[in-house]
């Protein structure tokens, strides 16, 4: 029997964005015990350029995304005891492990929500970096959008870059109701 090949969708829809937003909210509400607020997409008022850590995971299947979870230094220090049950030193391997796990958990939750709406994909192992003003660049400059979140004590962001299979046209992010901004690139 011939395998069935589904085309890779290079489109990020309102439904996808809702999945991503809810995954971040549910994951960090559960871990922090606080109510996380969604601050919007590509919210330039949010302080992205700060010292902190990022976790990166690729999602590959019916879609082709790269997600980056950004956690400022104060946020990861605050999350340590809540997530692991003990303080985690900022400059430690344990902190890298924690950020990797958090990225993993968010990505796993996103995949489950996508699966429930008929989008099948798998995720890579996480890559973690620590530094200041961290920003990922891709040679093909895929369209991307960034969601910002905060509570009284923590702030974080999640960036999604949308790829597409070579030769299948452009990738783009639709401007859905309630999500404000549009970002697309031909």
């Amino acid at each position, binding site marked *: 029997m011939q395998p069935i090949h589904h085309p890779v969708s290079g489109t990020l829809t309102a439904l996808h964005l809702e999945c991503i937003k809810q995954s971040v909210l549910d994951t960090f509400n559960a*871990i922090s015990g606080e109510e996380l607020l969604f601050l919007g997409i590509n919210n330039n008022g949010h302080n992205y350029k700060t010292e902190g850590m990022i976790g990166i995971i690729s999602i590959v299947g019916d879609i082709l995304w790269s997600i980056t979870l950004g956690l400022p230094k104060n946020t990861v220090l605050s999350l340590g005891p809540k*997530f692991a049950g003990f303080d985690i030193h900022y400059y430690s391997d344990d902190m890298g492990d924690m950020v990797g796990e958090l990225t993993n958990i968010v990505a796993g939750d996103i995949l489950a929500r996508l699966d429930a709406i008929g989008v099948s994909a798998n995720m890579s192992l996480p890559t973690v970096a620590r530094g200041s003003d961290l920003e990922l660049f891709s040679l093909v400059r895929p369209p991307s959008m960034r969601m910002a979140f905060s509570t009284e004590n923590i702030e974080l962001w999640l960036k999604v870059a949308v790829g597409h299979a070579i030769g299948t046209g452009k990738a783009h992010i639709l401007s859905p109701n309630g999500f404000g901004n549009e970002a697309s690139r031909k």
Partner: protein
Amino acid sequence: MKLKALIMDDSKIMRTMIMKTLEDTGLASFSFVEAKDGAEALVKFDPKHIDICFVDWNMPTLNGFDFVKKAREKKGAESVPMIMITSEKSMGKMIDALDQAGANAYVCKPFTVEELQHKLSPILENMK
């Protein structure tokens, strides 16, 4: 009840969290063997000396799904409970782990002491 548990996860902090949470459940007196991936776990998994396994899904070298399948081929392994503890939450993955690989239970990260107690209690009850 004394149990030797094999804890496999590529994240050291997650292994520490699983071990601490297991102790906090109060369901048994645990001693631990750790492995950072499925391949290392397969070497350390001796059904005569390991009573229960806690298995992450996404690990380098050999993932948790393949570990459970391969470990089940060892003589005496069929009676060793294998608990998946993973961030993979899709229904399809859960069904694969339980039906195809032969895992006994599925716990999603992040997890609480109560959730682990709930999943483990019937399994440990069967081991008595």
